[in-house]
């Protein structure tokens, strides 16, 4: 099977409000940055383009089509889109390369979440007969999940606060983070709950922005003469939409995806986990069986800044950048979608 190399990644700052910028204006600087990393002119120089976005977030119909204006699609290009996080656009692109239909691919994800009420907007991804009409928001669903974990003694509120505290501290070295700084466990536990038992700091902030990545075959990476990291495995699994049928204190889909992606075939130096709520990081660490030798979310993770439809791709990008920088030789990136970690993707990255 053809080996896949990541050769470029860039993401925007996580902005609480990107002002009047439209999707094209959010995407273009990220595309320019990844093209420059590999010395490419525009999307004509890659074989395939795939993006991830969701028009519901900003309430702009066909924003994902408008995004193509950022690419340079004259003459026409091979392009695809997933109404999902761009981590799944990465997955599609990897399949495209492995099938021999492309040597290289540009992947990008973007969202303006600030124009709408994100937790309410996301309620409309639920079952349309029973749940969506109730407008059950994502924070409330996550709060019920946290309550289950606390009640069963799997975690304590102090564990959740420790996740937040570490996220904010790690994010101090992440120039794109939205929330960063020293915040003690005691200070967090002293805050009022937002949706019990979740405090505001337990929930990822709402942000606008975009991220982009270029992948290719190893042969292409060598031809381009740029540093690269290998994606040695990637897999994704989904659980039933019926929340009542799931064990919300575990994530078997994440565990299966990690096994299929080959996580256990070597040491895991770093893990970038897409946990929009603090208790979900605890849950994912347990589900994956990660040990102390694995640095969890050295970027600060999405609790420090969450670009909907791009944060999953950014997890892969964060691991890529640390491997390129020599800070790690092997790591995993996780992406999630749906309520309470319903759908999960795990990628394993290794130094070349």
């Amino acid at each position: 099977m053809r080996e896949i190399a990541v050769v470029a990644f860039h993401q925007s700052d996580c902005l609480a409000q990107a002002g009047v910028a439209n999707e094209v204006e959010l995407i273009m600087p990220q595309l320019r940055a990844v093209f420059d990393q590999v010395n490419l002119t525009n999307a004509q120089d890659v074989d395939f383009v795939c993006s991830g976005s969701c028009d519901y977030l900003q309430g702009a119909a066909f924003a994902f089509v408008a995004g193509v204006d950022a690419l340079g699609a004259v003459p026409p290009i091979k392009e695809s889109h997933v109404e999902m996080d761009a981590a799944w656009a990465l997955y599609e692109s990897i399949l495209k390369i492995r099938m021999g239909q492309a040597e290289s691919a540009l992947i990008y994800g973007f969202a303006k979440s600030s124009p709408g009420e994100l937790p309410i907007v996301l309620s409309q991804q639920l079952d349309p007969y029973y749940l969506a009409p109730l407008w059950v928001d994502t924070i409330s669903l996550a709060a019920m999940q946290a309550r289950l974990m606390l009640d069963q003694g799997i975690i304590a509120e102090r564990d959740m606060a420790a996740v937040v505290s570490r996220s904010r501290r790690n994010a101090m070295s992440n120039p794109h983070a939205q929330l960063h700084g020293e915040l003690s466990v005691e200070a967090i536990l002293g805050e009022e709950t937002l949706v019990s038992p979740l405090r505001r700091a337990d929930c990822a902030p709402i942000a606008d922005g975009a991220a982009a990545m270029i992948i290719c075959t190893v042969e292409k990476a060598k031809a381009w003469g740029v540093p690269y990291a290998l994606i040695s495995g990637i897999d994704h699994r989904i659980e039933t939409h019926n929340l009542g049928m799931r064990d919300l204190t575990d994530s078997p889909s994440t565990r299966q995806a990690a096994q299929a992606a080959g996580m256990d075939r070597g040491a895991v130096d770093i893990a970038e986990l897409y946990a929009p709520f603090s208790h979900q990081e605890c849950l994912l660490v347990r589900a994956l069986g990660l040990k102390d030798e694995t640095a969890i979310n050295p970027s600060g993770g999405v609790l420090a800044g969450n670009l909907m439809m791009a944060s999953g791709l950014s997890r892969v990008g964060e691991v890529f950048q640390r491997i390129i920088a020599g800070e790690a030789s092997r790591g995993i990136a996780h992406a999630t979608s749906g309520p309470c970690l319903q759908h999960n993707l795990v990628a394993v990255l290794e130094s070349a």
Partner: protein
Amino acid sequence: MSESQDNVTGMEAPIYLQYNFTAGRAPTRFLTRIKQGVLTGQRCPQCANVYIPPRGSCPACGIATEEEVVLPDKATVQSFTIVAIPIPNNPIKPPFVIANLVLDGANISFIHLMSECENADVHIGQRVQALWKPEAEWTYAMDNIRYFRPIDEPDVPVDMIGKVPVTGPATNPGRAE
């Protein structure tokens, strides 16, 4: 379960979501200027094509557009159709003309209405000019221009449509800054 029941063929589940929508930087600039009666495009720094209305990028080159270009309100018909069916809730009565127009100094067309013309005489290459609404009615909208109407200028050859330079003073009703 032998109890008979009606088929459920529908249920009420209205969706209402509120957004603080923004037009984008380039469209915001365009809309602000058209409210002043000025047509403003953007030029690609690479291929030099002028786009109006602008979206902040050159879709052909995939690069950001910054330079603004004020354009006149004279245009050339690139293509057209005569619509014989009414548009629901639209005051325009058929048959009316929808045309792909290229402003002088611009390189891509936009769609607008044509009127004050014999529909049968409308043709590709025809020269037209905007008829603006009264200034008091100008807002952030393309229909500040009520429609385009023919003017007495020679036709533009087909291969020159989209390549017509700006000649003479812009005849926009608004004020250029």
